[in-house]
Structures are given as C-alpha cells and as structure tokens.
C-alpha cells in the first residue's frame, strides 16, 4: 500500500479568475523531497492558475469574494486572490 503525502501550492492571482496570471506563490512539500523558502525563485511555477490544473494540481480552496468593509474601500493589505492547490504524491 503506497503511502501518500500532500504537496501544497499556493497561488496568488491577478484577479479572482483561476485562469488569470500568477503574481505570487508558495510551495510546501509534505514528501520532504523539496524545501522551499522565501526568495528562492524569481519565476512563477506556472503562468496562470489554470496552467497548474493542466499539470495535475487540484484546487482545494477558492478565495471568497468579500466586499470591502465600510471605510476600508481604498485600503490595500494582503493579496486577496489566494488559490490553494494540492497534489498527493507517493513516498
């Protein structure tokens, strides 16, 4: 029986559309084969979120569309279009 571990890809896109461009990203590898850290790559792993799907990643969370709180309409903060994807890989 193969043992599976989760590999997580977090993509921050230019809008709420999954086929829009990747602006930021993070990878966490539960297999232990890869160790990613801040500032370790300047090129995104995929051009768009959809490209990640085509490569076998499964979306496990879509960002909700939440209207701005009154008074904070012009405030910028975290990157909002955060898509979380996973792959299950054998170890």
């Amino acid at each position: 029986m193969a043992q599976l571990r989760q590999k997580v890809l977090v993509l921050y896109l230019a809008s709420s559309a999954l086929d829009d461009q990747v602006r930021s990203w993070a990878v966490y590898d539960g297999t232990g084969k890869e160790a990613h850290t801040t500032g370790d790559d300047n090129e995104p792993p995929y051009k768009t979120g959809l490209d990640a799907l085509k490569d076998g990643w499964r979306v496990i969370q879509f960002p909700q569309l939440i209207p701005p709180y009154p008074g904070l309409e012009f405030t910028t903060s975290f990157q909002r279009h955060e898509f979380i994807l996973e792959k299950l890989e054998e170890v």
Partner: protein
Amino acid sequence: MVGKEFLLNSKQMAFFVAKGYLRFDELIPEEINKAVMRDIDAGTVRSQPAGTPLSQCYPAPSAVGEMIRLPQVQGIIHSLVGPDPLFDHQAVHVRQPNEGAAQHLHGDSTIDVRMHFDVQLMYFPHDVTPEMGGTLIVPGSHFRRINEMDIARYQNIVGQIQMVCKAGTLMVVHHGIWHCGRQNKSDQMRYMFKVRLNPTVRQRLLWNTDDLTDETKKQQTIFGGAKKSDDVQSILGQQEPWFEWGDGRLEIINRIKLWRFITGDDNFDVHYWLSRLENMPENLLEAVE
C-alpha cells in the same frame, strides 16, 4: 546644513513614494566599509536609547558615524525625514553561512497607518553575491496594511528584488516595505547594518525642488498615446509586476495621497484617479422655464 547638491531631486522622491525604496550603489568609500566591518567583528557598534537625536549618536571615533555623516548620506536623510531625525534603533543583521532557510517575509515594527513615515537605512559594508542571501524587498509594498510576520506565507512575489551589490551600497526604505533576509548558501557570513530614523519636522518639500515645475506636475492625457517614462506622473503611475488588476489601481491612489502630503499640492493627480472620486458637485441647476 546639507548642501543643496547632496539633496535628492523630485524624480528620486517620486521613485521613493512609488516603490518605497531608493538604492545607492557603492556610495560609501572603501575605507569606511572596512572600518565598519572591523567594528562589527569587534562588536563595538554601540547603540543608543530610542529617541536620541541622530546628531548625538555615533560620536567620533565611529566608522558608522563617519558613514552617516557623509554629506551624501546626510542629503538623503534630510530629503526624506528632515534635519537631525531621531535614532529609533539599529541592528547588525547576520545571515549564517550555509543556513537551512531564509527569514520569513515581514514588515518591521507593527501595523503603521501614518502618512508620516520613518526610513530605514540598510547598509551593506561588504560585497553581497547572489549566493550570500542579500536582503529581499518587495517594491511598492509599503502601503499595504499588514502586521509584521502575517505575510510570512508569501514565498516569492513577481518583481521582488534580491539584493546583490558591491561593498558600500546603501538602500533606504520606507518603514512599511515588505522584506526579509534571504537564505545564505555561501560559506561566508553575510552582514547588513540597519538603522531606523524618525522625522522631527513635517515632511514637506525637504528635498531639492528645483525640478518640481508645472511641466513636471502636468497631468497626462489618459490613453493619450506616447507616454513619458521618467517624469513624476509616469513614475507614480507605473504599476508593479505583482500588483493585482484591482488593488494595483488603489496603490496609485495611495501614491497620489503621499505625493500630495509631501508636496502640499492638494490638486496633484496622476491621470484622473483621485480627481474623479473627488468630484461631488453641490451646485443646483436652475430649472428651465
């Protein structure tokens, strides 16, 4: 008093407002860099109580004091936070050789919603190669309201700058800039000396404003064809490659507001972003008989 020739110009100030940093490569002479490294190695770079006027910090003999008292450095400081700002804190940042990971991305101190801003001098007294894990900054991140390590999840951001530089390079950042120390994959220690400064005067027109003319401030036509690239309007209007389509527009508005704050020109706009929102006519049209 700092000579006018050492002050920043309006385009440099616009770059700082837009990007949240300015970079001065190989600004500090080699003899000072070497002396600072000797002091760091000896552990003799003495700190001061927070709130001490900078002019009272680092009395001679002090290599860091020599660096800060260079007229070029004084001109940068004066342009951004005015004469004799307050010393906030200092730190000798060290990245250990062959370390396992980078520091997480963060903003310093706490969430800070002021329009007034502090600056941090980041001084690299020795060469920093790509492998040595120079400081990473995210241009244009300084207006984002986040609290310290809450942004640690972001590993890489399109357009991030990984500091690779020669000895004597000085980077000056807005207090809100997102940054971190990168992973040092070399077998040498990597140092960066940082000092935070607080203004004691209202930050308005503190730089050399000779180039702040009506032409510089002129509004550009929206979708008006060929664009300039190095005037104040263009510098403030240039999106960062990591900006989202929507929030990127809000960042231009943030820049307009800070430019108005430091110039006192409440009518300044980039294209028509803020003027459009400020247009709320109250005059009533006379009824036609």
